């Protein structure tokens, strides 16, 4: 059976993928689920899997080629099966010399077929040479309703077969399809409560959006005395060998705890409602070469300082290697961004919608501080919280920040 290997949408926002390396080569036997190639998406390096079995007969997108989602990158078939049909449906087939299928038939097992000039072949052609059916080709035929339903359910239509005329995907196909490849951000685990918007909340939302951009930010800054946290960290790290606890770990633990106490800040703006989460999934901004990504520590509220520390270290390492899966960098309920290591005293971070808040952490610096009339030198740190005003009001955010400050200044509060 001929199976077309198409560039798949491996991240929620992926439009094209770059083939980094082929792990299987022409002539290799492959089974369903085998990893064929590593593909670089806009977010990470992902694995492209086989969706059928047979011999990897032809690779159309060589290493380094960038291919649009939905386009043909290879063909899997039985050793002497005629694959010209699969190739003919695409511009790639048309671009090949006509002698090609014959040669493939003569030497079905030859693996040293030179990597084809695939980038050129992957380019779109002006004409479609034959009608598309189901998942073949770049165009998916679906009724407008089917597209809308698929979008709402996070269903990738390329995996749905259409029962309408010419393979058109219609409502009933979407309704009976299993959600195989979620393209929308997965909802985080755990419970949550949707609260319908009141009129006043709607009006506030509308007016604030009119005033500044799609997410009406406001900012709250507080300065935290870090002497006790400093001591606590030193003591903890003296306890045992192994990875050291960082200030960032302590801050994450404190933020998770504070969010449990202030669920009003642990929420998503959902346009027609606000979703308050019962669990805390902390998104942590990690700088990578190309920019930044926010791996999510799930259930951070239920994890110990040591667990948070270990998990973040592991996530950050894989983030830098671009090995995070979409599930690992979506679905946060609140974000933390720390630029303290860059000697930034204080900054404002931009909210990552639909989350309603992000905490920007500055560096810990020694400062002159007046306490009870005496001048002292103390380690201080500035925290700035960006709040989505549609969800969080000034006093709400301030109370949350107060709890964070209290716990950082009195680390024992964490074990209350």
């Amino acid at each position, binding site marked *: 059976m001929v199976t077309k290997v198409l560039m798949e949408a491996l991240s929620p926002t992926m439009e094209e993928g770059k083939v980094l390396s082929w792990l299987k080569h022409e002539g290799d036997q492959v089974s369903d689920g085998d990893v064929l190639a590593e593909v670089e998406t806009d977010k990470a390096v992902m694995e492209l899997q086989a969706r059928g079995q047979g011999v990897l007969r032809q690779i159309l997108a060589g290493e380094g080629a960038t291919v649009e989602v939905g386009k043909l990158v290879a063909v899997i078939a039985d050793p002497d099966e005629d694959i010209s049909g699969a190739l003919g449906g695409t511009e790639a087939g048309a671009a090949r010399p006509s002698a090609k299928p014959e040669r493939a038939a003569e030497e079905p097992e030859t693996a040293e077929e030179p990597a084809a000039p695939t980038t050129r072949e992957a380019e779109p052609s002006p004409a479609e040479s034959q009608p598309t059916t189901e998942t073949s080709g770049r165009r998916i035929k679906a*009724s*407008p*309703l*089917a*597209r*809308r339903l698929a979008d709402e359910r996070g269903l990738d239509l390329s995996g749905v077969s259409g*029962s*309408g*005329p010419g393979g058109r995907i*219609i*409502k*009933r196909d979407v309704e009976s399809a299993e959600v195989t490849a979620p393209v929308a951000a997965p909802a985080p685990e755990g419970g949550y409560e949707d609260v319908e918007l009141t009129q006043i909340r709607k009006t506030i939302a509308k007016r604030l959006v009119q005033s500044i951009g799609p997410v009406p930010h406001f900012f709250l800054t507080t300065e935290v005395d870090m002497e006790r946290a400093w001591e606590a960290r030193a003591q903890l790290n003296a306890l045992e060998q192994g990875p050291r606890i960082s200030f960032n770990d302590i801050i994450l633990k404190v933020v998770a705890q504070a969010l449990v106490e202030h669920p009003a800040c642990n929420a998503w703006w959902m346009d027609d409602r606000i979703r308050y989460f019962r669990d805390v999934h902390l998104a942590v901004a990690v700088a990578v070469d190309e920019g930044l990504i926010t791996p999510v520590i799930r259930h951070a509220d239920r994890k110990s300082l040591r667990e948070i520390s270990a998990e973040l270290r592991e996530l950050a390492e894989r983030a830098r290697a671009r090995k995070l899966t979409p599930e690992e960098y979506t679905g946060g309920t609140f974000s933390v961004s720390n630029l303290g290591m860059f000697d930034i005293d204080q900054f404002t971070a931009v909210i990552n919608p639909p989350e309603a808040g992000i905490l920007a952490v500055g560096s810990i610096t020694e400062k002159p501080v007046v306490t009870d009339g005496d001048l002292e030198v103390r380690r201080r740190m500035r925290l700035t919280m960006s709040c989505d005003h549609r969800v969080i009001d000034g006093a709400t955010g301030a109370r949350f920040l107060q709890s964070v400050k209290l716990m950082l200044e009195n680390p024992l509060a964490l074990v209350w």
Partner: protein
Amino acid sequence: MATITYRDALNQALREELERDPDVFLMGEEVGVYQGAYKVSRGLLESFGERRVIDTPIAELGFAGIGVGAAMTGLRPVIEFMTWNFALLAIDQVVNSAAKMLYMSGGQIGIPIVFRGPGGAALQLAAQHSQAFESWYAHIPGLKVVAPATPYDAKGLLKSSIRDNDPVVFLEGEMLYNMKGEVPDEEYVIPLGEADVKRDGGDVTLICHSKTVAVALKAADQLQEEHGMAAEVVDLRSIRPLDVETIMTSVRKTNRCVIVEEGWPFCGIGAQVVDDIQREAFDHLDAPVLRVTGADVPMPYNKQLERAAKPNPDKVIAAVKQVAYLD
């Protein structure tokens, strides 16, 4: 509530409006002494006299023009065309005078006139006398176009049309005049521009007006019996203004739509409705909107061919099966 014919419902509407407003008068061929070619004006001459019920020569352009002139002076003429086929002779007065006057006088001269008469095909009246012209008039800014399907709607809509301050083209049907239906004893009017859901259903929307309402309802019954499908029948009643909201509410519910009309397909009413649907309900469509129309030919005289040229329940059912992917 009395059960009366469509013809008598129109007669009641005329009588009530003639009584209600001394500015209303009826004019046309054979409306007086002969009591109307289709007896819609039966008894009116006797009740209201020659100044209010006026027989004219066979000169459509002339009496349509007199009507427009009377309307300019503030009267409320009801002009009866024996059929809308004959009104082609008067179309200059309808399109160039009645529809334009308010605009061209800078809003000073409104034309509160009703042009009424039977439209569409009857039986074996052949090519020149079997034409549905609603799309012609609906095309013209300045005209309202109404096409009732039942006695109840006929009475309520004719009364509203007579009271309306704009020119109204009121299309009846020779094949509808004998249709019976319940009409309330007390007075009522039906506002122009409001469609009516004649049958509730969630599986497909059938949009129709005038004679095709009966066709759609029959198809809907058959669909329920034979295919277990619940068709919603939306009777437009007013072609212009068009009740887009009711259409969209239904299409958003059913996700599929068939439009049934007696007129020709090209630039027909259905073409306009499809345009609205694809703009307003695009993301709710699970199938292309299909149309069942009169055949795109001059109406044949031959009985079998005439039957084949008209919309019928079988054609509607075939289209529904297509939009519901039942084939």
